[in-house]
């Protein structure tokens, strides 16, 4: 009996000590935040935007946080060690910024229930794993409006990596945007089966241009498509980052990602102890997506049209997939007066009317 009591009191003591230590840590030490990047940072692209976000967060929160990153971490089994290392080293918040980190993040999170994890673009979450992604399609729709107004051949080319819903959604939104101002516009797609392969992206852009596309865009990580457009003298829409330095004449605009506000807000929540696992899907309104400054060649009325659409998306009166939305066969998927739900968008596995070719399985 007495030994049990002693054990209990020991436990209480330990718990008290732990609380004190934790409290002390909160008061004195900065919150350590880790970032796992899938590619080298470079000077444009997916990882570059995340690094911009990390720096913005670091600047906003100053000495309250201390952040580190590891770049070029392969997806799959390798990443688990890196993620775990952050958790084991006393990091309180870890951002894993690529889809392929999903299962490793969940595995590590199970072992470190006190650490908060945020995984980008995935679909699995847990008590201490939140997910975040941007409504890239909103930016795609706006860029589509600009492309639709500028094209003379009524054909746009789209270099895309993998036929996953996120990418297909971007193609469809771009097409919807184009056809909202130019009902004859069509979009041709070439798949590269790689997120980063400048050679193949450049070749794909050349093929699309040869097939009559006078606007090209891409859902891949390099700047190759914009550069190819600059060389061939056609228009381009950049993605992830503003790529105008790679195509000063060619770039009409770019769909930019901004993670800084989200990172700052999340870190502040962890600091305050109010963080909860959520599925964040932020768009134009939340500032996660925006449109880079338009090319000077874009005429005034098209600029106004785009700005009106942007305002509409911002205040919720316009949705890139508002009825009637038709699939390639011309069947109505979303009837007049309705908009597509998030659930429907998450599972988008078809092309809308105006996209040419078949979606690969």
């Amino acid at each position, binding site marked *: 009996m007495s030994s049990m009591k002693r054990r209990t009191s020991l436990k209480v003591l330990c718990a008290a000590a732990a609380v004190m230590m934790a409290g002390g840590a909160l008061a004195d030490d900065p919150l350590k935040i880790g970032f796992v990047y899938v590619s*080298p*940072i470079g000077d444009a692209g997916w990882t570059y935007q995340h690094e911009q976000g990390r720096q913005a967060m670091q600047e906003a929160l100053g000495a309250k946080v201390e952040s*580190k*990153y*590891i*770049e*070029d*971490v*392969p*997806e*799959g*089994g*390798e990443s*688990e*060690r*890196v993620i*775990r*290392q*952050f958790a*084991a*080293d006393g990091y309180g918040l870890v951002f894993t910024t690529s*889809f*392929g980190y999903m*299962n490793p993040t969940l595995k590590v999170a199970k072992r470190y229930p006190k650490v908060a994890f945020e995984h980008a673009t995935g*679909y699995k979450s847990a008590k201490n794993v939140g997910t975040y992604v941007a409504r890239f399609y909103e930016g795609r729709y706006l860029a589509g409006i600009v492309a639709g107004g500028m094209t003379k051949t009524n054909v746009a080319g789209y270099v895309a990596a*993998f*036929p*996953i*819903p996120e990418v297909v959604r971007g193609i469809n939104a771009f097409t919807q945007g184009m056809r909202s101002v130019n009902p004859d516009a069509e979009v041709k797609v070439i798949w590269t*089966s790689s997120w980063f392969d400048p050679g193949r992206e450049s070749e794909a852009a050349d093929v699309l241009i040869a097939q009559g596309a006078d606007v090209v865009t891409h859902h891949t990580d390099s700047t190759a498509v914009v550069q190819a457009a600059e060389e061939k003298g056609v228009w381009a829409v950049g993605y992830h980052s503003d790529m105008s330095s790679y195509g000063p004449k060619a770039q009409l605009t770019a769909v930019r990602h901004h993670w800084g506000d989200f990172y700052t807000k999340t870190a502040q929540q962890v600091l305050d102890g109010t963080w909860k696992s959520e599925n964040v899907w932020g768009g134009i309104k939340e500032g996660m997506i925006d449109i880079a400054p338009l090319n000077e060649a874009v005429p005034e009325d098209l600029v106004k049209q785009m700005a009106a659409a942007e305002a509409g998306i911002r205040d919720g009166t316009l949705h890139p997939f508002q009825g009637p939305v038709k699939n390639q066969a011309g069947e109505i998927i979303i009837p007049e007066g309705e908009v597509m739900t998030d659930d429907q968008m*998450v*599972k988008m*596995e078809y092309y809308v009317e105006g996209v040419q070719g078949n979606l*690969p*399985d």
Partner: protein
Amino acid sequence: MRIRIEPRAQPSRLMGWLSPLLAVVLTLVTGFLFSAFLGMNPVDAFHAFFVAPVDDLYGLGELGVKAAPLALIAVGLAIGFRSNVWNIGAEGQLTFGALVGGGVALWAYEMEGAWILPAMILAGALGGMAWASIPAFLRTRFNTNEILVSLMLNYVALLCLSYLVHGPWRDPEGFNFPESRLFSESAMLPVILEDTRLHAGALLALVAVGLGWVFVKKSFIGYQMQVAGLADTAARYAGFNRKRMIWMGLLIGGAAAGIAGLCEVAGPIGQLLPSVSPGYGYAAIIVAFVGRLHPVGILLASLLMSLLYLGGESAQMELGLPSAVTGVFQGVLLFYLLAADLFINFRIRGATPQGLRSPSKPAEASS
């Protein structure tokens, strides 16, 4: 004084042992200069690179997790390399082994049974062998170059896997993302060290090292293959069957790589992904040569490569070095390791100018 490099009459046994040490010392010196140049404390840098990654049990486990596939593949490759069979396709054989073995795991989804894992390992080995048999057949039948054929097949294997995980084998609950289902518990290799990721694949790698040693040192075919590697005409004169050796060299390499691939998907990964290897099949070629094509050397070399890789991550985390700098460190060590081997077959002589050399001609020297 000039310096001359001249061949030794006999390879130096002493230098055989000393050259790796020399390489390490040179790397330390270069690393010291390099980190001083970057404004870092060299002691911190070396701690981050070589100590921090393995200063706990988990780190040691990770060392094994990375070294196991490297050792397994390199032991298999070395057997071919010793007989001048240049299999550069271990990456593809690994991928195909993972594909076939992982296919068994997906087929046995939610089944129970002790037979599942052995069946997967067997399937992995057969997958790797099947992929390696293509260059073997083309080489023995049409005398094609196995370097090119095996290398090119790496890309084909990757595309086969990519097709399957994008299409028929995609996780039905996975929102179209290119990944298979997670394997069931009975299709996963058991962890052999608690609280780490070290899995039974590490034991397979050790068994392979043992078998590789027996094959090279004790078996007749191993002896024949070595003779063929050292002196092809002598082997032919002795009537050794060259075709048989090519088949053996490629199939053994393929089986080892296939098992390594299966161990990756049934170990740390736990599902099929569009890419299942961070380049183990290529790194294993370096490991085989740094280990001098000897099974024990390969074991040590695989641990070294693994440590270099972990050190690179740890240096990024502790010192904030970009990943490119860690690549430089790794390259420097590998360069010195291979360069120091020069001293096994050559020696450096300080050669003084002719006139001053001989004390028997004092008159010339004074004139």
